[in-house]
């Protein structure tokens, strides 16, 4: 399979974001519903996830660069068009989820830890959607 640098980079990001945040949300699952995880514990898990995410992204992107002959090429019109399309749709996904979380928080009395984690989940899902759409457009066009 002939993958451009940007496709490889997107695959790396998609896999890392999915693995790291899936692990986080499995651990934080109670906090999504009843806030039974305390604020400090939640912060600890969040900071840990971010650190792991950053380290893995750095390593993953270095591998993507080192295995791509075209890594130094700037984005061309197709790269920019795909990024724009995928970003536009993921923006709608994020908007929908954030409005849903906001509506939920208005009617249900929940702690800030719960709301924060639902918003984080919304951001992660929209990011995953952007990566998945980017890869789809690279492979299938539109």
């Amino acid at each position, binding site marked *: 399979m*002939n993958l*451009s640098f940007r*496709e490889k980079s997107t695959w790396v990001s998609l896999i890392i974001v999915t693995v790291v945040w899936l692990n986080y949300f499995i651990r934080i699952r109670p906090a999504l519903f009843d806030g039974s995880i305390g604020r400090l514990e939640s912060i600890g898990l969040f900071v840990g996830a971010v650190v792991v995410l950053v380290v893995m992204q750095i390593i993953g992107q270095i591998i993507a660069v080192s295995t791509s002959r*075209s890594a130094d*090429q700037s984005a*061309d*019109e*197709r*790269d920019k068009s795909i990024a724009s399309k995928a970003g536009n749709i993921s923006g709608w996904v994020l908007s929908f989820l954030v409005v849903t979380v906001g509506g939920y928080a208005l009617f249900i009395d929940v702690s800030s830890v719960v709301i924060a984690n639902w918003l984080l989940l919304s951001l992660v899902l929209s990011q995953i959607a952007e990566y998945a759409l980017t890869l789809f457009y*690279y492979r*299938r*066009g*539109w």
Partner: protein
Amino acid sequence: MNSSISNEIRKLRFEHSEMTQKALADAIGLTRQTVIAIEKGRYSPSLEAAFKIAEVFSVPLEEVFQYRIKD
């Protein structure tokens, strides 16, 4: 969804000293993967890129790209 625009880029490359996709990409300022996508009809290039491709092969635009009206 496939484009209703077809092209003869692969044939033109072959006729021009078997130009590689990379050489064409470098000549018009796109990536090799974008040239591949254009040839396979998965991406319709901008007007500017289309004119650049025609210029590389020294042929009119219509010899490179053809627009079909779908029934």
